[in-house]
């Protein structure tokens, strides 16, 4: 049977991708960001997942304002890195485990999560930056070491799904994956955040104390974390900090008790606080 062995929480700042793509990771500004992922890359090599179930949001790339699905599951055979306005990232095409994705779609809908199914979709930095930071430099002619099943969550138009809804979706994702009859090691990623505001006169807001408490709750009290209100995200972590609801999908798919094996936090990457955590399911 397929099994979820670990969860990864990770920011997906576009400038991190640009820094990797333009060879700036050793510069003084970026070095502390990437130093915090050294251990993560070693961990990924050892963990060697067959599948990454990757929860992210599209930033008005694959979806324009004409269609705004709350949850959409990537069921296409592959997903090309999109041109977001400055050319596509030079990273490999993302390949799906299409059969498993279809199984998950069916299982989730029967579990009363009314998904949108994407049979064609390009993916933006929200999906490729977490892969890049966790795997390191991988050129467009190589392949990502794992297959990726993308779950895209609307966090652009208010309101995104609640933390509680995301947490319960995570539990349903776990049921779906564990009922798939193939021996596969699955790691789930929840991406986005941490505190940041990109827009208008309060842009640049960072709330490190809040972020640290959120990381603590991820490890110790996921139910309390899932109850954080939208208003609290918006006020305390900036208008774009609300992306953190996506971490609850990841956390809901894990055991209530987990082992935190790594954590990294750094300010700034562009406008954003970079947060990262690795949680292993206790077996």
């Amino acid at each position, binding site marked *: 049977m397929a099994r979820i062995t670990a969860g990864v929480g990770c920011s997906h700042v576009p400038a991190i991708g640009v820094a990797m793509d333009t060879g700036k990771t050793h510069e003084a500004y970026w070095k502390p960001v990437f130093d915090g992922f050294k251990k993560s890359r070693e961990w990924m090599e050892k963990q060697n997942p067959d599948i990454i179930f990757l929860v992210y949001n599209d930033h008005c790339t694959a979806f324009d*304002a*004409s269609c705004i699905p709350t949850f959409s599951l990537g069921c296409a055979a592959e997903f090309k890195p*999109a041109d977001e306005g400055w050319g596509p990232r030079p990273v490999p095409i993302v390949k799906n485990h299409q059969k498993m994705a279809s199984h998950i779609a069916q299982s989730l809908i029967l579990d009363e999560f009314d998904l949108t199914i994407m049979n064609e979709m390009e993916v933006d930095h929200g999906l490729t930056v977490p892969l890049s930071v966790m795997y390191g430099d991988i050129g467009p002619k190589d392949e990502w070491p794992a297959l990726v099943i993308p779950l895209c969550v609307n966090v652009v138009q208010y309101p995104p799904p609640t933390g509680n809804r995301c947490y319960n979706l995570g539990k349903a994702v776990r049921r779906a994956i564990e009922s798939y009859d193939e021996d596969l090691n699955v790691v789930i990623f929840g991406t986005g955040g941490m505190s940041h505001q990109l827009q208008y*006169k309060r842009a640049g807001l960072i709330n490190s104390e809040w972020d640290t408490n959120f990381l603590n709750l991820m490890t110790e009290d996921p139910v309390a974390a899932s109850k954080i209100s939208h208003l609290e995200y918006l006020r305390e972590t900036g208008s774009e900090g609300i992306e953190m609801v996506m971490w609850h999908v990841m956390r809901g798919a894990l055991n209530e008790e987990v082992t935190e094996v790594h954590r990294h936090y750094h300010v*700034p990457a562009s406008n954003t606080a970079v947060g990262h955590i690795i949680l292993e399911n206790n077996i």
Partner: protein
Amino acid sequence: MTKKEYNDIPGTFVFDADRSREGYHLNQFCISLRLQENREAFNNDEHTYLDSYPMTPEQREAVVKRDWNLLLELGGNIYYTAKLAANDGINFQDLAGRMTGMGVDAYREMMLNGGRPIQGNRTNSEWEKN
């Protein structure tokens, strides 16, 4: 109408359904610039290109003037307006430098020093005091 408690957050637009409706054609114009061929057509002749998007005269003028804050005030969303900025060679951080009125260098410096603190930036009344 339900009360929008988030309207009490200073210097912030929450892109809800009302804003989305108001900014629809503006945002659809902005996202069209995601593609190279559209960027070329727009840069070649802004006015003709804008004719195919039925936005309000105010929105259109804000686009032409690149008035980044006004674009948000008129229903634009930052992920959309950032496509117009990217077309002009302005990244997210430099755009924030402009929107805050701080300028690019002072904004970058603030971020290097830990960002804008939450203290004093939670509610409109806190901003009105200053």
